[in-house]
């Protein structure tokens, strides 16, 4: 199908499956690997678009489900889409809306037609079809839009998983057909198949035939064992076309990002950094600081030494302790810091790939974060070993 993106791989890691690339989208270039902050309702938690841009963010997420409810499709059409609506001139990615319905609404029922759910407004029954999702996402105008998929929990087993996989393929076809702006918006397919390698393989084969501009690994991050999670990711990146961007949905913990990049993933999103910020938790290379804790009241260091975000440039942990979770400014500052942290991490990852020292970066990253090897998560050790990085033994290897 038509594509409105350009995918230029500029460097490949000599050891792992990681790669550095430039993804050129209708609203400008995106340096991959990339973390995309989530602005659910057309805004990123009290941060202005100028501030987000100032952090170097090139692409942000919006949620179709939320924007579809408010401001609604009609208003989005009137004003010319979500970019204009929120004053954001860089790229946007929207999900299909299906995940929210299934996960948020107790009474959602999935049929071949689509996802049926109770309107949160008046309780009436509503139906989200692949056609409707495309129509909404066309109105939003996101640079990358996601197909409506049949989402099942990653803990589900049995025939339901296979059913969801095949239905997602059928829905992809309907999405492709309903997509009205393939020349300015990129539709990504979502690989399903649960934790079953055979189903994943089948799904990839079918979806690759549809030749969408990019692919996402879906149906993960739902509470499955991390050791199963990474195996699915790695299997998928092996089977997916290497000349297209690969997006792993809902991943955002620092160690998960680093491991998944090594497994060959290019794009990530997660609400975690901004959500945890509102509870006063600041992310750093050496772990999370819970700034509500009294131990910070006399700590006159910035959140993170060397961070150039406005929170770290202006305030000490001691002062932040007095305002986090109390003043909105406290929330804004930690949200800005956490977003800066995530983006910086990805920049560092990318630079190390370009300079072909990504394995060394990984070693240092884990050492900074977990201090002792005994504390390294076993799944991460296993995952990295699969791409020739031995966290325990191989520190001195090139």
């Amino acid at each position: 199908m038509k594509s409105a993106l350009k995918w230029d791989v500029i460097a490949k890691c000599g050891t792992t499956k990681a790669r550095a690339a430039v993804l050129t989208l209708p609203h400008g270039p995106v340096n991959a690997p990339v973390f995309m902050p989530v602005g659910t309702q057309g805004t990123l938690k009290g941060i202005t678009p100028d501030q987000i841009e100032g952090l170097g963010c090139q692409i942000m997420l919006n949620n179709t489900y939320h924007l579809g409810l408010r401001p609604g499709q009609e208003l989005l059409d009137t004003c010319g889409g979500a970019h204009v609506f929120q004053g954001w001139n860089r790229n946007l990615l929207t999900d299909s809306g299906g995940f929210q319905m299934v996960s948020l609404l107790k009474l959602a029922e999935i049929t071949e037609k689509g996802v049926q759910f109770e309107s949160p407004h008046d309780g009436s029954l509503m139906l989200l079809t692949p056609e409707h999702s495309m129509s909404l996402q066309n109105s939003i105008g996101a640079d990358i839009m996601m197909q409506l998929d049949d989402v099942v929990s990653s803990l589900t087993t049995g025939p339901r998983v296979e059913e969801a996989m095949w239905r997602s393929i059928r829905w992809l076809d309907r999405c492709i057909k309903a997509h009205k702006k393939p020349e300015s918006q990129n539709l990504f397919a979502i690989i399903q198949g649960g934790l079953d390698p055979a189903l994943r393989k089948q799904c990839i084969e079918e979806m690759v035939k549809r030749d969408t501009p990019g692919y996402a690994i879906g149906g993960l991050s739902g509470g499955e064992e991390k050791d199963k999670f990474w195996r699915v990711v790695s299997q998928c990146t092996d089977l997916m076309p290497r000349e297209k961007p690969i997006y792993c949905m809902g991943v955002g913990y620092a160690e998960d990002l680093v491991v998944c990049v090594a497994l060959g993933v290019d794009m990530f999103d997660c609400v975690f950094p901004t959500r945890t910020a509102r509870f006063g938790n600041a992310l750093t290379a050496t772990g999370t600081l819970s700034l509500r804790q009294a131990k910070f009241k006399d700590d006159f260091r910035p959140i993170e030494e060397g961070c150039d975000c406005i929170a770290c440039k202006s305030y000490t942990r001691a002062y932040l302790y007095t305002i986090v979770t109390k003043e909105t400014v406290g929330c804004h500052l930690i949200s800005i810091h956490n977003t800066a942290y995530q983006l910086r991490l990805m920049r560092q990852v990318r630079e190390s790939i370009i300079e072909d020292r990504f394995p060394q970066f990984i070693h240092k990253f884990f050492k900074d974060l977990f201090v002792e090897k005994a504390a390294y998560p076993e799944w991460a050790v296993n995952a990295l070993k699969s791409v020739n990085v031995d966290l325990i033994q191989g520190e001195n290897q090139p």
Partner: protein
Amino acid sequence: MTSPLKFQIKQTSAKPTRAGESARCGTFALSQSNTAGTDQQHVKRTIETPGCLMYSLKGAVPHLTPDNLRQQSFGGVNVSLEQILQTDQPGSFSRWPETSPIPQFTGSKFTLAEYLRLQDLITFCDLRDYSYAAENFRHPTTPPTRKLASNTDNHAVLSTPKGIRQLTLDDYLKTVRHYRPDVVVALADTIAETTAPNEKRVRKSLERSLKWLDQILLERAGQDGTIEDRRAEEEKKRRRERKEKRRSAAAAAKAAGEQQEQDQDQDQEQGAGTSKEKEEEIYIEPIPTEPWTDVGLFAAVGGAHLEESRIWSAQETAKKEGVDGFVIDTLSLSALDKDARLKHVQTSLDHLPADKPRLLYGLHAPEDVLEAVAMGIDLFDTSYPFQLAEDGRASLYYYGPRPAGQDKSNSKTQRSINLWDDEHGDKFVPILEGCRCYACKDNKHTRAYINHLLKTHEMLATVLLMGHNMYQYSQFFILVRESIQDGTLQEKSTAFLATFGKEPTRTLEKHPNQIIVEAALQKRNQRLEGAEEGVVGVIGMGASTVNTPSLGAAVGAHAEDVEMEDSESKSKKRHETEEAGEDGGAKDEVVEKKVKKAAVAESSS
């Protein structure tokens, strides 16, 4: 003593046509010698007067991060001690580091401005948050208690975010020596009652304030200001001891000389001069004190609604050498209407020297500012634009001729609009055509978008509204200053009132849409609370690492999406589960590791 501040009146009202019109334009800045040591990065701003100090909560201007704050042109910030003095926090003087703990400033004094990142702004420190002098003023996060226990000769009572606190003169002096703000208001016994105080109470408050002012002035000059207090204390103690001694002696003697003893006792009570016990000899060692002549000192003048007291307070305070400016108290006038309050403000002003700046709280709506400016008030604060933003309101008022391009967006000549109103939902126009604030400029953020942000309970709503309202307030002040200079203040003030009428009295009622949205949010939070407690229970991490839902709620309703249920919370839970691993056994282990990791990382860094 040369003043650390420089207040220059450039021009007084060109046409003082109306009785008592004494508006003036000027600049309020730090004196040259005082800024000499400041590093080049942080050049202090100047406040053009009549002008404003920015209103702050816990030392931060509400909703504006330091970068967004710098988009405003106001030259100073008002930080109230009761907002930051908390026993367990670094703002408390007992925990204040002597020298800067921040590497780039090592060796230099650690100041409040450095702590609050206000080095480029005039930092003005008052005791209390006097915004309650305005009708129905509302704090979104930490509602202070207005009426506190009574002040005494020894302390004033403050309402800190963590409870009531007594501030003694000693505490006050320590705080000033630590904080080194650019301006501090002298400790005063301010009357916070909502009913009119009686004459005795007013007299007492004024005497107390004046005594404290004397002591503070001595201390600022490096002299022991509390020596007389200690002498009085010592005298009292000795007298008590003597009495004790005599009583025991009398008891021991059990003699007929009882009558004589009593006579002696009376002698002593009558006068120190005739005493045989030589009370004169009491020597009190002066405590060497560190001067703080780099800090400007403002004094409060009050007197409540009693004209004589107001005159007396102003006259007595004006006599003090070294007072750099005055705060005109209106908190004790709360029982009166605006006009009556302004009349009493006038009384105070009539007896203050013209060459020193005067600050007024609580009368902050544009037409009140115009009245106060005409009387000769120089400084206000920005509690007005803040309060509007809290209500979802955006300013449209203008002063003087209607700015070009405004006809479209302000066709009904409204003073403000409420963006909670449904009618703005589809208005893809800026709040105010031609406005240069961050939201309006280039039509970046429309009324429809802000309406959306309010209804989805997104914090960006108040960020944008605060920025806009602050910007408009600063524009208003610029035009007011111009009108003083060209002699059109009175004319334009009259026109303003004719166009916009009086600010409707603020009520605590919420907009119907806000009520709906907050109810939905509360419902959702309750559900989440249960769910998250479950998570805490399973993981057993305790409160230190797991998010406490009530704290999320404490950030004000803004903190969360209002969506029936939103993806964030779910995803968060996903992460919690993820973090906890799959089976019960692994959970605790993984979590323990995480906690340990965090602890190790902390202690090692």
